[in-house]
């Protein structure tokens, strides 16, 4: 009788490539990841960037200092105001201008509002990425209130171009304080609901807990910043390390979780929203009244030298590095974008996880692709 034997050595599994993106619902834009998969397990990730690269750094070399600012809106469009502020602060630092107190306070409030708006959008998208589609609309409802506040004062909803070297474009709208004061209790009321809807959900907890672990050492070595680093227990909030604008006058705490997994990063952002509300609350009632523009020349020329300004955007540590040779255009501008460095962390974290986890990890890293590509 013929014997049929199964030789397991003959059974081979084959790794295969999967192009995730540039058009893919989970990449939030045009990020392309070339995945090497074994079944559904991710073996290797290779990012392919540049689908929305607009050479902002090169463009800056041909623009005047005032004209750089509106370009930075288009980098990390969700924290547009903070990007503006970073460039404005770098220029002010170079020119040694002391801006009015009012400007500092306005910038800080706007920055924190932007941060909340960005985190709200992230929360909605986070829910969508793990399959809870309703979160998106709830987050957008609240974000819309911030957008309205922005539009009323800055004239634009997303790309505000609000900071200028030495001040801000417009004065606050008379309704500003009223609207912000309406918004604060509203958000305080809905965030516990969000926690019930998504954070507490057993499926969500199982999806998040222990997934995408990033150790503290790795987080530092990979250059992670912002909520990603703080979820791994790294003290990395620039608002605390090097307070800018009016942040040295307010009392707030840096949110740090030490678990280093998806849930920790999630919680950092959720708590940061409430902490931002605290900051706004401390400032909103006593905005000083000493003008919105320091004296600057019509044509700004920076002295020869190198200037680095770091700010904390919603994504992390944004560095604006301006090299000036004394002319009206910068010699070199480098935007050290948080998303670009955080992408390193994805490559490290995603390995060995399933595709579904990779999507969740990407979501907790909160990419904005124009911020990565610049």
């Amino acid at each position, binding site marked *: 009788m013929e014997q049929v034997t199964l030789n397991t050595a003959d059974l081979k599994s084959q790794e295969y490539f999967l192009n995730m993106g540039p058009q893919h619902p989970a990449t939030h834009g045009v990020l392309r990841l070339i995945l090497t998969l074994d079944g559904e397990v991710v073996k290797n990730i*290779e*990012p*392919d*960037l*540049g689908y929305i*690269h607009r*050479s902002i*750094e*090169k*463009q800056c070399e*041909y623009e005047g200092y005032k004209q750089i600012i509106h370009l930075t809106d288009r980098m990390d469009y969700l924290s547009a105001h903070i990007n503006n502020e970073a460039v404005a602060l770098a220029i002010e630092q170079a020119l040694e201008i002391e801006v009015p107190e009012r400007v500092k306070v306005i910038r800080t409030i706007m920055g924190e509002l932007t941060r909340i708006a960005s985190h709200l959008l992230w929360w909605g998208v986070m829910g969508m990425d793990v399959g809870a589609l309703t979160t998106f609309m709830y987050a957008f409802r609240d974000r819309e209130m911030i957008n309205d506040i922005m539009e009323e004062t800055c004239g634009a909803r997303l790309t505000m171009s609000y900071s200028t070297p030495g001040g801000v474009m417009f004065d606050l709208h008379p309704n500003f304080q009223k609207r912000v004061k309406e918004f604060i209790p509203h958000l305080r009321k809905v965030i516990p609901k969000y926690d019930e809807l998504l954070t507490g959900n057993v499926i969500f907890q199982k999806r998040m807990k222990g997934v995408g672990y990033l150790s503290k*050492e*790795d987080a*530092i*070595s*990979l*250059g*992670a910043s912002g909520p990603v680093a703080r979820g791994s227990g*790294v*003290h*990395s909030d620039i608002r605390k*390390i*090097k307070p800018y604008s009016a942040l040295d006058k307010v009392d707030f705490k840096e949110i740090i979780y030490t678990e280093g997994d998806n849930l920790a990063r999630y919680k950092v952002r959720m708590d940061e929203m409430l902490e931002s509300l605290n900051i706004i609350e401390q400032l909103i009632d006593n905005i000083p009244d000493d003008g919105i523009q320091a004296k600057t020349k019509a044509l700004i020329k920076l*002295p*020869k*030298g*190198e*200037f*680095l300004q*770091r700010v904390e955007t919603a994504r992390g*540590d944004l*560095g604006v*590095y301006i*090299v000036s040779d004394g002319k009206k255009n910068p010699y*070199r501008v*480098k935007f*050290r974008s948080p998303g*670009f*460095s955080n*992408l*390193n962390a994805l*490559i*490290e974290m995603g390995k060995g996880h399933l595709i579904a986890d990779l999507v969740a990890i990407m979501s907790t890293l909160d990419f904005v692709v124009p911020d990565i*590509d610049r």
Partner: protein
Amino acid sequence: MMNTETIQNKLAGIFPELQFSEEASQFLNIIVSKDDYIKLAETLKNEGFDYLFSMTGMDWGKELGVTLHLERTEDRFMIVVKVMLEDRENPELPTLENIWKTAHLHEREIYDLFGINFKGHSVMKRLLLSEDWEGYPMRKDWMDPSKMIIR
């Protein structure tokens, strides 16, 4: 706590050829030659500079360069390391990927835009631009054929 003097004295002891300057910058600038580059990076990492804040490709006109912003997460002390490369045709540097993992993408970006080849890097391919792109657009002598940026 680390400050400018301590680090300057320490490094000057190990690398006699280093140049230090604090002119026109908020941080201590260390200008290192290509040969000492990797050794200096290792020394700095051991000194506690564990956070590579950014890696900036530079075109100084005559020479190409890389500027590193390094920070100690312990006390948030920052220094700047600069390396200049005279050779514009085949600029080469050893990779920092094994010292600071974040250098992985930063070096690929610099390779892409400035054409500095990082020896020993695991994936030395173009990152932002397509594979068939010619030239290195962030260099000062790069001409924009489509007149898109330079008007």
